[in-house]
């Protein structure tokens, strides 16, 4: 095209003094940014192809590369940002819906960053996790409202199915298809090693990973891909996906080119066909329908598996959660609007949903107000970035959190937000064998284990500082939180006081 409306976002800066022409950048860039010029024996780059994934930067052995934001600018103003302008150019050219990946990047408040944690001083000793037991084990599942005793007066210990986790963090749903086999294997093995769960997402479960079933949540989504009896029985829990924080109200679409032999078999669809998850479940048009699916799944698995219902955080999330709690579900997963995705319409990703912090606070409060909080466990997801976010989410009232983006980042993801291209240079969001092999699960699983081990240490440190040595005493303990820079309404919804109060 003669007119270039859109200019490269990044520039690849190469320090020719340091470049030894090893060509690793060229070999490792699936976007073919780098090129070797034989005549002059030097490397050059085509900035327009760069997605800023940093694969070349990370592998350059002489640190000769860096990627900088292009100083190119439109005549922007507050209203017409460069992004707004380029998006118009793109749509004027393509006539299509804009697609994006990963979580909402826009400048909405991040409430986790506006809450501070408490610590003990004088009147109540802080507890040193290096010296005293510091417990992060949690149980997920419905709790009985009364107890019964046998004829000897002993408590009858029959409970609805429970999940025991070594720490209140799980890997949330990412389908095999949206991410690679090696990414899945890394998650599965890390979950097994850590004593937590990972989630298959809606793409079914590769037969090689059935052995990690006790650490697996099997998801049932609107496309019902890969759902069969063995699949349901293989997992520790079943999740019904009603919605996803990154794209509430929107289904999923795995392009046919990603549906190779293994994925085709796992999803139970023909090779090369698009895998389209409808926006709604076509058998769930009401809460009663959901209840039927919950019980169908329980019936199918002999009431041995807890059922999770996952919803996107939307405006009336509290009422929806209340309905779900009464539908027989054992757990509710709430996914905030910053949650990641392999691909979502940009407008949906950037403009729909709620911050998880507010959604979580209002759901927890609503369920308590209705006296049904113990009927369900709450799993909060949608951009939990650190152990501090975990602690804050638990203090707001979550039983457990879901992480996905953080896990991918641990696996090497650089948040270039180009998942939808299928050319993930880090071997995560791709099905191209040459790219998939870049993620060695032996390394990947170890990095995930390291990440959560580190988080667990930090969680223990923060708990110890608060004088709490079992994480259940942190759950819903909102006095441990104080807001900074929040208005009355925000504080009210979060159920916390302002710092200094």
């Amino acid at each position: 095209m003669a007119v270039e409306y859109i200019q490269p976002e990044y520039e690849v800066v190469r320090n020719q003094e340091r470049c030894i022409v090893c060509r690793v950048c060229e070999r490792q860039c699936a976007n073919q940014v780098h090129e070797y010029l034989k005549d002059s024996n030097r490397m050059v780059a085509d900035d327009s192809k760069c997605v800023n994934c940093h694969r070349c930067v990370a592998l350059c052995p002489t640190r000769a590369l860096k990627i900088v934001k292009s100083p190119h600018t439109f005549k922007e103003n507050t209203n017409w940002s460069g992004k707004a302008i380029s998006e118009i150019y793109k749509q004027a050219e393509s006539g299509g819906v804009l697609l994006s990946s990963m979580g909402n990047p826009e400048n909405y408040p991040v409430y986790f960053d506006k809450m501070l944690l408490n610590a003990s001083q004088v009147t109540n000793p802080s507890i040193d996790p290096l010296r005293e037991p510091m417990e992060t084990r949690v149980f997920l599942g419905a709790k009985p409202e009364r107890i019964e005793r046998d004829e000897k007066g002993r408590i009858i210990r029959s409970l609805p199915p429970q999940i025991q986790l070594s720490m209140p963090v799980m890997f949330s749903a990412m389908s095999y298809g949206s991410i690679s086999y090696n990414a899945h294997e890394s998650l599965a093995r890390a979950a097994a090693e850590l004593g937590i769960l990972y989630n298959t997402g809606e793409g079914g479960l590769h037969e090689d990973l059935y052995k990690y079933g006790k650490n697996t949540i099997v998801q049932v989504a609107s496309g019902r891909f890969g759902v069969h009896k063995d699949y349901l029985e293989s997992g520790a829990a079943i999740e019904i996906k009603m919605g996803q924080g990154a794209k509430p109200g929107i289904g999923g679409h795995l392009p046919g080119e990603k549906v190779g032999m293994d994925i085709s078999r796992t999803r139970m669809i023909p090779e090369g066909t698009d895998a389209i998850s409808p926006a709604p479940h076509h058998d769930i048009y009401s809460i009663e329908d959901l209840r039927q699916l919950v019980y169908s799944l329980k019936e199918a698995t002999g009431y041995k598996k807890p059922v999770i219902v996952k919803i996107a955080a939307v405006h009336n999330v509290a009422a929806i959660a209340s309905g779900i709690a009464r539908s027989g579900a054992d757990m509710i997963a709430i996914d905030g609007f910053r949650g990641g995705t392999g691909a979502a319409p940009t407008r949906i990703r950037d403009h729909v949903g709620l911050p998880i912090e507010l959604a979580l606070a209002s759901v927890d409060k609503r369920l308590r107000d209705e006296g049904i909080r113990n009927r369900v466990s709450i799993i909060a997801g949608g951009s939990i970035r650190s152990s501090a976010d975990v602690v804050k989410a638990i203090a707001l009232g979550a039983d457990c959190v879901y992480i996905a983006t953080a896990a991918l980042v641990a696996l090497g993801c650089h948040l270039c937000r180009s998942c939808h291209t299928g050319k993930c240079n880090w071997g995560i969001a791709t099905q191209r064998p040459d790219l998939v092999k870049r993620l060695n699960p032996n390394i990947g699983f170890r990095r995930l284990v390291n990440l959560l081990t580190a988080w667990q240490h930090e969680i223990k440190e923060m708990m110890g500082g608060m004088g709490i040595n079992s994480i259940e005493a942190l759950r819903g303990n909102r006095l441990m939180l104080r807001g900074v820079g929040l208005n009355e309404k925000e504080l009210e919804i979060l159920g916390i006081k302002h710092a200094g109060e």
Partner: protein
Amino acid sequence: MEYVIIGNSTAAVGAVEAIRRNDKTGKIVIISNEKYHVYSRPLISYLLLGKTDEERMKYRNDDFYSEHRCELKLGRTAQRIDVQEKRVILDDGESVSYDRLLVASGSSPVVPPIPGLEKVRNKFTFTTLDDAKSLEKALFENARVLILGAGLIGLKCAEGLSKRNVEIICVDLSTRVLSSILDDQSSEIMKQHLEDHHISFYLGRQVTGFKDNVACLDDNDEIPFDVLVLAVGVRPNVNLIKDIGGKTNRGILIDERCRTSIPDIYAAGDCCESMDISSGQIKQMALLPNAYMQGECAGMNMSGVDCIFDKAIPMNAIGLFGKHIMTAGTYTGQTYYESDGKDYKKLFYSNNRLNGFILIGNIEKAGIYTALIREKTPLDTLDFELICKTPGLMAFSRETRAEKLGGVINEYLGSPVGISCVE
């Protein structure tokens, strides 16, 4: 246990190292008619060339004998073996008793029966350090050196002399250089290369006689020379065994455990003949690697550990004026061939096996071809077309590669089922 080794070169070292692996205390006696610490014979040409010196020619470090606790009888010749008494009688009458004896007596240069040879001044053979030292002493500026034989020894000698400001003339009965290891075309390439380095050849010619220091050829040409090097071949030293009725042919006959036909007597190295597994023939393969491995095999068996060496093949790595030649095996069967006139590659194969090869120039990873011959690898188990073009592990199956490179062994899989989360 008393071990006696006749000879102090490669095979002897192989035997000593093997014996000491199994027997730390037994007595080892080494008898050699040379007075030197063990040195590498093939290096004598490099000594002439100035690329090495006597110190660096030592095949093993100075402390080799003490470390391996060997008793040395150097400059002494083993005259005969007394099989009944199990002892070796030396030239000075001393007798050395043995429980196990290794004959690693090597070979001697062939001196052809040419009329007038006895009157030639400055004539040398070229297999020992003393040979090289004597030859060096006889050299002078612009001397004409006539080398009889364009084989491995003759040409290495020629190269060794090349920096000495002497004229080098090579005569060989064969019409080709290195006729024992090269075929016509490769031989021609090497001849060109050698001529480019100022070696003159008289090929397909016979020296019929000498008139003092003039060689007379069969076509009546006469070549005057100052120094004569006889490099027409070597003959195994078999007499010690032959004298006591042991089986010999051109060389001493040994089995795959390096045993001679006489109990408790082993033989190894250039004095032997053994099976060339690339051709299935028994032949003399006077090659250093074989000598070491035969010596090692003999040493193992002598010290009580059963060991078989049945992987002997002819193989030669030789560099001449910067051009490297590698050959191995037997040149029979179908061929794969590529050459640009300077470099050369020919592979010989039949019956699903690689029989031999000749490489000139690009010798990268040649050992992979050697291994195919040595291991008799069925060619249909690998990508033969690929390996012909490029020797490498790529041509093998994934499983074979994994085995060779260790990739599949003990790959850490974490805990297949770790901490269960199910109540």
